[in-house]
């Protein structure tokens, strides 16, 4: 189905040249942009990760080989806790967002009165500026003046430290992420549900299948590829979450690094502490983790067909 098959009937020399070479003429500006701004910086990061650069990237740096990698991989104070927080954060928000997102998508599936308004409500958290969202929740979760503790009080639940607690901060940021991004999963899954054909559902209904059975044995298998798309898109972004964490806890993920994920750690090493060698190493490892988890997901997806 290539468009090459058609003869080019240009007039002037330039027009003829442009039409024959339109494939690369069209694609190369964008490709050049990506190569210059992305491929080169990634190569540079890889190089920095093998040096002891710190203070300023301009200062003298020595080639140290794999030393940074050995140091970082042996660092149980900052690196491994950051890996664990990243895994925890991503794992929890992904599971909650997909389960909750599926439930809400099923509620919205069949048309009803007022549907338009529900859809508007779903879109709002999604487009709200993450930094502003972080600030908004800081007020809501404030241990002294926040509404969150008051609401808990109505139900007789004791006050929580929320973002201020060393143990509760990460969980609280997960709640914020879930509030903001479950709607994204709802939209994706709803698009999938709407594209399903009605026939299998109706056949099952005639056969006397219960609501749960229809969901478990018909809807869910048919939705599998859409769910994987949702997990993939959300997963990449959840691994890289930065705005909400930095807006609520600031540098280093808080004074006890309670929300310091890999991305926050790498950012801090680069711009708060200027340890470029170490930060590049962390970034390369982080990048490998992202690629690895994507690869694991997509290869499973292919194996299913």
């Amino acid at each position: 189905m290539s468009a090459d098959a058609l003869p080019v009937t240009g007039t002037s020399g330039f027009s003829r040249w442009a039409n024959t070479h339109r494939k690369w003429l069209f694609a190369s500006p964008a490709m050049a942009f990506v190569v210059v701004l992305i491929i080169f910086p990634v190569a540079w990061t890889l190089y920095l990760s093998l040096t002891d650069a710190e203070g300023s990237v301009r200062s003298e740096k020595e080639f140290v080989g794999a030393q940074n990698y050995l140091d970082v991989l042996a660092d149980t104070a900052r690196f491994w806790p950051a890996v664990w927080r990243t895994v925890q954060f991503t794992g929890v928000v992904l599971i909650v967002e997909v389960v909750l997102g599926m439930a809400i998508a099923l509620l919205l599936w069949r048309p009803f009165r007022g549907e338009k308004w529900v859809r508007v409500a779903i879109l709002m958290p999604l487009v709200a500026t993450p930094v502003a969202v972080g600030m908004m929740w800081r007020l809501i979760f404030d241990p002294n003046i926040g509404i969150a503790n008051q609401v808990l009080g109505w139900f007789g639940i004791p006050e929580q430290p929320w973002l201020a607690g060393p143990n509760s901060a990460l969980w609280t940021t997960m709640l914020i992420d879930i509030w903001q991004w479950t709607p994204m999963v709802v939209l994706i899954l709803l698009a999938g549900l709407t594209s399903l054909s009605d026939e299998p559902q109706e056949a099952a209904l005639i056969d006397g299948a219960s609501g749960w059975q229809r969901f478990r044995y018909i809807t869910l298998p048919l939705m599998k590829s859409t769910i994987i798309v949702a997990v993939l898109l959300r997963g990449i972004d959840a691994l890289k979450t930065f705005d909400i964490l930095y807006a609520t806890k600031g540098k280093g993920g808080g004074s006890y690094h309670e929300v310091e994920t890999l991305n926050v750690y790498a950012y801090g090493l680069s711009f708060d502490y200027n340890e470029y060698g170490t930060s590049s190493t962390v970034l390369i490892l982080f990048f490998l983790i992202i690629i690895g988890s994507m690869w694991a997901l997509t290869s499973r997806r292919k194996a299913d067909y």
Partner: protein
Amino acid sequence: MRGGTAYKTFRVGALVLVVLGLLMPLIWMVAASLKTNVDIYDTSKALFFSPTVDNYKTVLEQANYVTFIINSLWVAFVSTVLSLLLGVPAAYSMSRFSMKRSALVVLMARVIPGVSLLVPWFYVFSNLRLVGGFTVLVLSHMFVSLPLVVYIMMGYFDGLPLELEESAQVDGLTPIGAFRRITLPLSTPGMATAGILAFIFSWNNFMFALVLSGAKTKTLPVAIFDFVGYAAIDWGGLMAAATVVTVPIMVIALLAQKYVVSGLTAGATKG
């Protein structure tokens, strides 16, 4: 046919809960932006208070937010236009000539952690004396919006029938002529989708602007972050600032709901 009265009642109840859960925090933010700091601290005035616009006066007049709004608008506008200019033809080529590997290179930009680009960018652009200027901000925002445009437009072009272009060429148009006069006009909804999403992502972008913007080019998300200093937080002002950055983008999303949703779910049902 489906479900009895019990389910219907449950469904209405559940949907009301979902809507309240999603909207209440935003309403709370706007409410706090209209309160004095004394009222914010007074839990008895959670819902009933006498509104004031003083916080907005502080934010817009003293804290210079008008400049930040203009900066945000300008950066988002220019980066969106440039991303469309580069991205639409590229997506067309990648779709029509099945350039899978090239597409993958562009889409890699979505996966790479932004921090890994910031150090080299900062180094190169500060040598070129561009850090703190608009050029570098626009370029960094294009890093997010260009792959988005390519991704959405590739899906869109994949869905456009090839026959239209072919018959236009039979009628004497060059391939580029057919792209310009047939395909592009047909792609307006796709470009609207890509453009609006690129604008929203740029408007909301925080990390790149945090490092690369200067005093004169600061965008709204960075300005909000800077609002929280070491002193006690001025909650009213902070919520007014947060409202100033979120409400415009929510209005845009509301008006262009169809496009925003189709952009966010692009590729979701391809299997």
